[in-house]
């Protein structure tokens, strides 16, 4: 039952990813990505990452993708793509992507980095209140990265403001 659910959600996620890549309309691509993000959020839920699932939906799908759609509509929204100037880029991309997939798949399935080829589902885990747990970790063990990240956000804020001005 769980496995079936997994495959359905996975299929939807893949459809979203392929749609993003193959769609000619950039707005459609953005919407496909939103679908993909939503599916991934569901997967997070299945992995007992409640907090992250919600953050994914709110921040990623809710804020970042909205920003993307703003910019897309700002810069000529429904434009068709002209053929590529680089000869053979498509073929090269395809071959390399397939190679990458085979490689990673091989690594995972062969167990070379200690990835165990389990076929069973691990027993359920009890982390208690996920938000509480993650928050505790953030403010104790990961306090320093947390603070640095806030500075980084400040930097990004300033940078975006400067970039957006027409005249400095």
């Amino acid at each position, binding site marked *: 039952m769980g*496995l079936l659910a997994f495959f359905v959600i996975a299929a939807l996620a893949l459809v979203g990813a392929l749609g993003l890549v193959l769609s000619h309309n*950039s707005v459609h691509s953005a919407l496909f990505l939103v679908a*993909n993000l939503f599916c991934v959020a569901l997967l997070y839920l*299945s992995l007992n990452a409640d907090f992250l699932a919600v953050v994914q939906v709110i921040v990623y799908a809710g804020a970042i993708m909205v920003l993307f759609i703003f910019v897309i509509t700002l810069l000529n929204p429904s434009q068709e793509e002209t053929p590529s100037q680089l000869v053979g880029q498509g073929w090269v991309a395809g071959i390399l992507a397939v190679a990458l*997939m085979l490689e990673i798949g091989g690594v995972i399935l062969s167990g070379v980095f200690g990835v165990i080829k389990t076929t069973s589902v691990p027993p359920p885990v009890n982390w208690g209140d996920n938000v509480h747990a993650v928050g505790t970790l953030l403010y104790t063990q990961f306090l320093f990265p947390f603070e640095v990240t806030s500075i980084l956000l400040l930097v990004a804020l300033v940078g*975006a403001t400067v970039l957006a001005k027409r005249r400095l």
Partner: protein
Amino acid sequence: MLAPLPNYLILSALLFTIGVFGFLYRKNPLVMFMSIELMLNAANLTFVSFARYLGSLSGQVTVFFVMTIAAAEVVVGLGIIVSIFRARADIDVDDVHLLKD
């Protein structure tokens, strides 16, 4: 967990590969950027899967940070794209080749 660990890992590998292909294949800079987000997402999925499998919350905290960074990156990246392509008629990343030898 709904499925054994390798399933999740293969899924995120597939998502990552699709993102790579999208980045190399598309010319629209915004679509390329979105492919990057797809790649980041796939990596996040891997982290969370392992966090659940190994029973350690550190993986989730890492994902938290990745998302934050991704947000900041999108902000700045879009700002750059806007400033480069603002005045052009068509947006094609191949037009920006001033660093050509």
